[in-house]
């Protein structure tokens, strides 16, 4: 990353507070995937009546914009291991890889009923066994995938 990193003991509790505020206002789980689902679902129904979850996701996007404007640019250039591994003509592989990874992320998170925020933060805060199992599974899988990629490239 290019910019100063906020200390974990500040950044973590701030995200935790967001989960608490959503509970205190809506008695609901904070989940980013819920935001995608709300926006996509309403778009499929040709409706503009997006609820707070959709607006939450729009806020997350704008939060990235605010950060980039204040910090003077995005937090990184290129795209991690992908742009370091694939050069020249092979760069054409990056877009389909990211697209397929995105499909897996969106579909998988919906099937599991939440992603790193919905299950990982909000679900675990409820000490929900399903969220604990989901969190162990996606962390374990992502760790294995990372080591497999490291072994291949």
């Amino acid at each position, binding site marked *: *990353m290019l*910019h100063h990193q906020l200390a974990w*003991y500040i*950044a*973590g*509790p*701030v*995200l*935790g507070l*967001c*989960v*608490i*505020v959503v509970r205190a206002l*809506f008695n609901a789980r904070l989940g*980013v*995937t819920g935001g*995608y*689902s*709300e926006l*996509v*679902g309403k778009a*499929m129904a040709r409706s503009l009546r997006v*609820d*707070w979850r959709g607006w*939450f*996701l*729009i*806020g997350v*996007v*704008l939060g*990235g914009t605010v*950060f*980039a404007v204040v910090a003077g640019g*995005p*937090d*990184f250039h290129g795209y*991690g291991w992908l742009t370091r591994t694939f050069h020249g003509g092979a760069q054409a592989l990056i877009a*389909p890889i990211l697209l397929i990874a*995105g*499909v*897996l*992320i*969106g579909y998988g*998170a*919906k*099937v599991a009923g939440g992603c790193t925020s919905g299950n990982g*933060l909000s679900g*675990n*805060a*409820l000490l*929900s066994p*399903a969220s*604990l*199992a989901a969190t162990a*599974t996606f*962390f374990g899988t*992502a*760790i294995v*995938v*990372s080591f497999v990629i490291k072994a291949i490239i």
Partner: protein
Amino acid sequence: MRGRVAGLAIGLIFGVTLSWSGMTSPDVIRAALLFEQSYLFLFFAAAVLTATSGTWLLRRIGFRALFTGQRVTWTQDRPARRHIVGSLIFGLGWGIADACPGPIATQVGQGIAWALWTLGGVIIGVVLFLRRQEPETEPATDTLPATAAEPAHVRA
């Protein structure tokens, strides 16, 4: 209206914090998943610990949600096949792209062009799921039928 404004405001804080913590950077995520940096795990544990303390405190004091008037309560789902299978699929994508749904959104907000591909994928994935017309797995509220709500209060 106030719900939408609150959602937008919470999202802004969430997005700025995710960006500032470096979680938008694929290299930061990858270093954590390869156990080269401890930041992600400390950050995640601190977030879960804070969220857990606050959420349980709200229920303990019988807090009524400000916008819905409901007493704070929830159900604890048992692990089912979909939680494991879905998380396997999600984890596979996360390990490849080194970004989960929140960071993908902040990457797009920061103007990272590559993230548009991941974003497009997530949208396709959600459409594929919604087309299957399964019951909503991520409810907007944890509202329960009157009869089912009882055990949650008893547990508290």
